């Protein structure tokens, strides 16, 4: 019971943290949604280098643009 309570508290805590990080992200206008942000946060928590991760995000965004463009071209 206690463990589940702990879990719940932790979950609550994590949610709060993610929320505040999301706030920050919006403040800084990073353009990340909450889902992506949580993935990134977990990755950084696991030791990923923030700088490189940012680079990856940028790359992926560009890729997305390219794909979109292709799609629009195809259409």
């Amino acid at each position, binding site marked *: 019971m206690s463990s589940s309570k702990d879990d719940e508290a*932790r*979950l609550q*805590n*994590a*949610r*709060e*943290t*993610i929320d*505040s*990080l999301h*706030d*920050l*992200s*919006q*403040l*800084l*206008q*990073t*353009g*990340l*949604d*909450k*889902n*992506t942000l*949580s*993935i*990134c*946060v*977990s*990755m*950084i*928590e*696991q*030791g*990923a*280098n*923030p*700088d*490189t*991760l*940012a*680079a*990856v*995000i*940028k*790359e*992926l*965004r560009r*890729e*997305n643009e390219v*794909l*979109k463009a292709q*799609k629009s071209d195809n259409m």
Partner: protein
Amino acid sequence: MSSRPVSSQSAHRPRPPSTSSSRSPLEQLVYSLVPSLAPPRSHRTSLDVRSGRSSVASSRPDSRAEVDDVTERERKERVKELMEWCEEIMESRLPSSTPLSASTLPDTAKRILLQSNSRIDGRSASRQSSRGESSSSGSERAMRFSGVWNKLEKGRLLSSPSPHLQFLLSLSEFNPHNVPAKPLSTNGSSAASSSRAMPPPPVPATFPSNQPSSSRQALADTGSTNLPTLDFDVKGKSKAEVLKAWRKSKSQKPFPQHLLLRDTLYLLQGIDGRYVRFAIRPPKEQNPYLTEKGRAGEGVGFPLGKDGAINQEEEGEEGDIVGIEIVADQPKDGYISKPTQTILMQLSEMGMLYRQVTDFISSKQAGEGKGGMTEQSLCHFLHHELSEYHRLLAVLESQMNQTFSDDNEPPADGAGLTLMRLGLWTEEMKLKLKQMSLVVEEAKKTHGGALVSKIHKHTSHGDPLIRRFTDQILEEVSKPFFGTLQKWIFSGDLHDPFNEFFVQLNPETTSLRDHGRISPAGDVGFEMGIDSLGRTDEAQTIWEKKYVFVKGMVPGFVSEEFGKKIFSTGRSLNFIRYSCGDSDWIETQAKLANAGRALKYSDLAGLERSIDDAYSIASQRLLEIFFDKFILLEHLRALKSYLMLGAGDFTELLMEALAPRLSKPAISLYRHHLTSDLESAIRGSNAQFDNPEILKRLDARILEYSHGETGWDCFTLEYKVEQPLNTILNQKSMLDYDKLFNHLWKLKRVESSLTQNWIRVTSSSKVYEKLPGLSNDWHHCRIVQSEMVHFLRNLQAFYQLEVIECSWKDLIDFTEKRQGDLDALINAHREYLDRVVKKVLLLSNKRDKEEILLDAVRDALDYILQFRDATDDLYGWSLAEATRLDRERDSERGLYTIPTTDSPTLSLNQLHSIKQRIKQCSNSFQDKLISICHLAGSHNDLDIRFLAIRLAWNGHYSLRKSSKPHGLIGERSSARSNRG
């Protein structure tokens, strides 16, 4: 650098399997960000929802129900590719440029937010509003940020919030590093605001690949005048790349470097390039800079400012050209970035300097200006240096050709030529060129020794390179100077065709000498005086005025005192050679040649030594010549003994011989009589043993006389001096000697006549003592007479012993030392003579009253002469009276006598007038004597004050003066005579 990726890898790698989801977070990320690649929905996603990643599922677009196998495979391949790419980025990370500590990170974020105020608002407002965020001001955002940040920091869940913040910051739109990646902003209509919004345009954008990173840094520093650069960099994209991309977006290519380089090499040679050229020549009148520069260019201290002006101008011109190219050949030629322009500008300064130097050389070679050997050697040196410069340029050009020989492809780092390297490799040459142009500027204004000293000033420059270079210049430039110097101090020749030496021929001298030579030849008559005077003038000028010392031309490394020494050395040698006709000249020269080595600028100590040697040898030699060959000392002694009446026997004889002639009117004097008397005086005295060389110079002369003067007034003894000697015994000195002789001669004459008078009075005292009523008068006469004798004796003793002999001793002391040069000797003699003249003539320092004492003495002497005449008369009268009385007695005794014609009353009248005269004379004399004592007693010369004490040693005169008013003296003496 390599350690960190490894560690992060190791930290990163083992984790993914441990996550709850089977999909790696990276894959999730891919799906999340590139929704088109997301796989068709699966039930597994529902698990994720529960594990805190619920939004993943919801945000994922609905997959198609029917999956095309082909597209699915394609998609998977694509995803795999993307994943690999992403992993590669994660692993092979670029060097981290975020050495930020956790503490500064929030500050940075805040700063960014604050700065974001103006520039983001406009363009991203729409995006923000869609997310429910109002486009609030930067400060508001910053405040909110700090609130959230505090909350995060307090939360215990995250191990550390800073990496997250760093991550977010890197992605932040406010981060200036991120902006350029986006299309150019459109909000800033004015150029200034847009340029501010733009990223700092880093220099290497044009040539990023082969710039060493350090130089890139330095350039970015110099080139950017923009926003404060942030300390951290966006990974993966350097500023250069960012700028390149931006340029690309503006479809601007970097200007081909090889073309620029080629042009730069032209510029370095002072030639206009194809794309970049000097803007000095064409618009002479229109360009406002030019006229300004023309004015500023004349100033001494603004060479740098001038450069700046030219550069500015050039920049403008350069900019024009680039602009035209962009219009016409934009795709082809491309854009020259501003920092590159700056480099070009800096490099082209050298071209300008080069032009200045070459212009100078060519103008000198074309024969403009004054020419001169210093300039010639300067030009030679500049030629040499410029050929060095050309060599350097050739090397650079070959480098450039090598670099761009194949496909204009810049080679790997560390090889080939770039603008930066060009700047670096020519740095030293640039300094040299600058120095050269400085020297050239100076050479335009000055020449010869002045130029050398101007250059010498630069040798105390702080930069050792420049110092050394200046030394080299000086070494070369001073060569002609030392050549001239060598000739001057070792042979006394002035070989200076361009008037560059600090010793120069006096332009007045030649005319003076010609004049001196011609005029006596024209009207030389029996009067030798004019001739001798003329020659005196000439020789005097040879030493004093033949050469002049030009202070401004003394080089800086020679002190003025030293320069004077050099001047004197050469002058002495020149004098020995031309004026003294020294037969031992060769010997001297041999000595000097031993003393002199090759003189160089680099051996200043040796220079000083050899000049010192040469100076002492030459001066010694000259003094020796004067003392030994020209027996200067004998001459001086002769002057002392004959003109200053030091030789008593000679003077006495001369006086005796001449006295009868000189008492006659001057008109009856003949020179041959005087000379024969002089001859006999010499024969009769010790003077006959003197050097005939000296005796033949003695001559008796009659001065110009006016009517009524006796021989005494116009007789003078002359001593003739000629060529080398009259350097010392110049005209002025001889005039002084004349003055001295006249005064002393008069004194002597008065003395001798007084002596004769005394003899007569004393020897015939038996005769007149018998006369009744005269003994008192005679007594008075004797008293006054002895007073006069006392006065004369003391005056003479003072002159001879205290003045002449003392001064003579000083002169002898000096000559025995034999130090210094001819100038020192001249000065010593001058000093000696001045002292004698001043004391013999009893000159005082007071203006207008210089001769007041002398006049008093002369008056006293005149009174003595009058008194003597009066006494003679009295004597004659007494004799006549005695004869008459004798005769009366004879007739009483009955002897026959010649009857007297004079009546006693007449003779009594005569007696009365004689007595009156005597009284008057003695009174006047005594008055004069009192005033002489008074004047001499208050004289500023101590010796003359002693003379006053001698004259009135027992206070007789001062007593008489204080006790008796002026008028009473006469009464007293008359009373005394009456009493007797």
